[in-house]
């Protein structure tokens, strides 16, 4: 027999009160949320701030009047220094003897002759030649001769083949000189001189690497005349340059014919009271100006 339990009257009333209470609370809560939403009551909300700074780029310094003014001043200072150097050299009767293409197998003999006359000179040397005779380069350093760079290939089709090619060859040569002698040199002589194959762009590239391009104002023509005639020709050219108020920078070559006749030239210089000097990194270089004569080797 199924038994049913019934709540008595009191129980029913209590349960009803609890139910009414809970339901009222629930509906009131809902009503309150609905009221907020329905009425559109806004709870004030402050927005986070933005960044509002402006950055106008600055005018390029190189385009400014100040930059031009600085450059003009630098140019004047350089000119002044060159003038001072020129005057000092004139006073000392300075002369720069320069030898290209070495060090040759006869370079030792060349140094002996120069030592004999107490003459200084600067050697623009080729990388492979330096590597073949490092001891002679060390001797040059020990005896106070100047070291310069002449590249690696001495082949005009190679060294002038591209804008960067001369810089690359000179940089390689520079490294070889430094490895062998510990001397850091920025002095450069281009094979066949900087005219006509060294273009403005190539000059720009070399300048950027701080290389100083040295040409000459006396061509001994030793490579062509090969005998006493080159001595006579050189002496004549030196006189001409002196008369023009310039300091002679003489192009010679480290080769047997030159070495054989060199004592005659050195005797002349000694008799005339010339002071042979070495070229240094700090000096303003003597460089042929393009003046429309430079062109690419294939151009």
């Amino acid at each position: 027999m199924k038994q049913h339990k019934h709540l008595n009257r009191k129980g029913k009333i209590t349960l009803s009160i609890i139910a009414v209470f809970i339901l009222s609370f629930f509906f009131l809560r809902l009503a309150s949320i609905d009221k907020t939403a329905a009425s559109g009551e806004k709870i004030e909300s402050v927005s986070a701030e933005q960044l509002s700074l402006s950055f106008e780029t600055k005018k390029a310094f190189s385009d400014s009047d100040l930059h031009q003014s600085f450059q003009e001043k630098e140019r004047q200072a350089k000119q002044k220094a060159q003038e001072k150097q020129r005057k000092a050299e004139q006073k000392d009767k300075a002369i720069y003897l320069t030898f290209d293409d070495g060090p040759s197998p006869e370079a030792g003999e060349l140094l002996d002759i120069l030592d004999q006359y107490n003459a200084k000179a600067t050697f623009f040397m080729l990388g492979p030649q330096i590597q073949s005779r490092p001891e002679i380069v060390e001797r040059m350093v020990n005896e106070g001769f100047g070291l310069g760079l002449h590249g690696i290939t001495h082949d005009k089709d190679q060294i002038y083949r591209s804008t960067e090619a001369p810089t690359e060859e000179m940089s390689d040569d520079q490294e070889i000189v430094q490895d062998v002698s510990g001397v850091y040199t920025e002095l450069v002589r281009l094979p066949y001189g900087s005219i006509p194959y060294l273009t403005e762009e190539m000059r720009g590239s070399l300048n950027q690497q701080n290389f100083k391009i040295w040409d000459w104002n006396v061509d001994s023509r030793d490579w062509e005349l090969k005998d006493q005639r080159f001595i006579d020709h050189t002496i004549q050219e030196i006189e001409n340059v002196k008369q023009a108020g310039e300091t002679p920078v003489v192009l010679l070559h480290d080769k047997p014919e030159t070495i054989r006749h060199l004592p005659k030239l050195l005797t002349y210089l000694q008799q005339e009271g010339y002071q042979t000097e070495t070229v240094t990194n700090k000096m303003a270089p003597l460089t042929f100006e393009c003046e429309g004569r430079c062109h690419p080797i294939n151009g």
Partner: protein
Amino acid sequence: MIKNWKLFICLMMLFLILLSGCHHDQKQAENIYTDLEKAADQEKVFADKQQALKETGEEEQTIYQKIMDIDTDHVEQLKQHIGAAQKNNEQQKQLLEEIDAGLNDAYQLSLPTKKVAEEIRDTEQQKLAIETVELMDKRYELFESYYKDFEDSLKESKEFYGQLQKEDRDTEALDKQIKKINKRYRKMEEQQDEFNRCTEQYNETKSKYYQAAGLTKHT
């Protein structure tokens, strides 16, 4: 009859649970609202100082232009302008630090929100609250990177003016320095745009959360 009243009691219990859940999320929303609004109020310092820095930066541009137009023969005038530019650089540095402190204070006020957001029971509300917190974090990170670049640009400007007044100044290096500064300015402009985009997103997400939590209807 006994079955009926047992069912009745169960239903009542369910109502009670539901009610306590709603009440809990409501409480979290109120806490989040308080913290985020305090943080937003604090950002007023961040905004006010920006105006001052903007004006100081514009002054520096004017001084720079004056310097660029000068001739080296006017040495005294040049020195004077460089001095003014260096002083201006210090002022910019000071203002930048105040701006950084302003945002940092605001960020600190918003930090408790992270924990509160994780405790929200309603999935949609929790998602929006966490997204809001994450956007605030991102804003802060973006500003820190922007601040670093700004600081570097001031250092570079200081170096530039320092070099400029030297006798043995390197004009090529000075030109490079200006190019470097301009490059940095362009980077900072991009960073500023990114920060502002993030701020817009933050404001929108925050409003959406308030709405979902029943705190407000409209943004």
